[in-house]
């Protein structure tokens, strides 16, 4: 079993721009330049119009809780060290069909033992980023008062 937090491979040209954006604290998704449909996770073709052309749209970072859970042991060692934590599936403000996973984070960037007051499905969120390696920051979600 690995001792570190598993991280994404970031050198795949299909999703590299997403990870590069996380280093600038930006949340981006693909938008088809033909039919304007959003898609996430990144893919080479638009499933609506089959266009291979897309732009990267910078999202506002506003979202709501679609669902959440609190994993308990047994977990990977690196995650057992982070307990207790909450994982949120967030629906982004720009498109209810775009849902992105992230830890519940405090305003100061903590993952462990974050105050869960107000955590419920539908609660408002704001994106935050936590850098794990020189090539990657992972998006997380902060509860908005």
């Amino acid at each position, binding site marked *: 079993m*690995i001792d570190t937090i598993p*991280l994404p491979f970031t050198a795949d040209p299909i999703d590299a721009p997403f990870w590069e954006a996380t280093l600038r604290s930006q949340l981006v998704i693909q938008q088809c330049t033909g039919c304007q449909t959003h898609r996430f996770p990144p893919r080479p073709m638009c499933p609506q119009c089959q266009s291979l052309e897309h732009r990267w749209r910078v999202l506002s970072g506003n979202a709501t809780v679609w*669902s959440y859970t609190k994993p308990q042991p047994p977990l990977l060692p690196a995650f057992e060290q982070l307990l207790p934590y909450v994982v949120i599936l967030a629906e982004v403000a720009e498109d209810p069909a775009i849902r992105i996973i992230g830890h519940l984070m405090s305003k100061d960037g903590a993952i462990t033992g974050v105050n869960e007051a107000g955590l419920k499905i539908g609660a408002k969120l704001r994106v935050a980023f936590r850098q794990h390696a020189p090539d990657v920051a992972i998006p997380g979600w902060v509860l908005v008062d």
Partner: protein
Amino acid sequence: MFKDQTAIVGIGQTPFAKSLPGSELELACQAIQLALEDAGLKPSDVDALGSFTMEHTPEFEVARTVGLGELTYFCQSPWGGGAGCGAVGQVAVALAAGVANVGVVWRSRKRGARSTRVWAGVQERITDHWKWSRPSGLVRPADECAMFAQRYMHEYGVTREQLAHVALAQREYAHKNPLAFMQSRSLTHQQYMDARMIADPLCLYDNCLETDGAIAVVMVRADRAKDLRQQPAFIHAFSQGLNRQHQVNTDWHGANPLRSSSCVTAANLWRQADCGPNDVDVAQFYDAFSPLVWFSLEAYGFCEPGTAAQFVADGGTRMGGRLPVNTSGGSLSEVYLHGLNLIIEAVRQVRGTSTAQVPDVEYSLVTACDSTPNGALLLRRK
């Protein structure tokens, strides 16, 4: 037409335990030999094999070790818990088409030890679609299922008090089954409510067992089935299913994440069948996690959306209920062999040999995992 043209005529299983001595290959060979004996067929009669992409015993090793005949068809079905019905169905399609004559599907696992969990093998850098969730601490299939369960329970006002009844109903069946892991272990509603959480709302008892063992099934065309040793379980209908915008286990990127691939499988199954959900006598729903039973009851048309929890809590899946479900104890309380355990119980219900036998079974349904690409088989006694 495919309908009723093939049948499952042999089933075999090794002992099930937390830790068995032999290798996965040895267990696979034992289960296949037992299934062939059950059918009254010789190893040399076999010319088709189906397995899981996750299976560690390659078909050539199985074939040369058991002494099978020369193979003319072999296939693999993807995605663990979603694969079982697909593997059986794919071999059946090949038999019905005349590409081969006697088919075997097997699954062998040594999973009792915690270090063998698939999620425990996660690498430092993730290249597949799990790169979008595992770095955030959502690593195990239980965590992924919990996301759907939490949302479902919120949308329909369902409680853990109701969820308990999936595990409790299956434990009652296990008490009747001498081979069930949990046969002699009682489970009360209070024990369930007090259990440690794994990923809320899922507690320990909402998770399947992890066991060593192997299971195999044997199939032939219907005309030959009638001359063999056992009451045939005719394959009345089969489908696989993969919904639009599907993402394995983390299937929340489609328009409605609560509409799973099971809805695709179910629609195509009922399109082929001479019957509908009301005619099904008994069902085995894939149950790595107990909410999958709710989701499957609704996707396959036995309950309206949002009503499965109360259906189960009211005893609808227990013996004497409208639809007995997972009658051997299922993966929660009998044994977890990636769903082949459910397929052989569906066969036993057709034969009349289940330890929780439903009277006068004509249609026996078995499904694969709701949260992956999946499949289902509708078996029939006629």
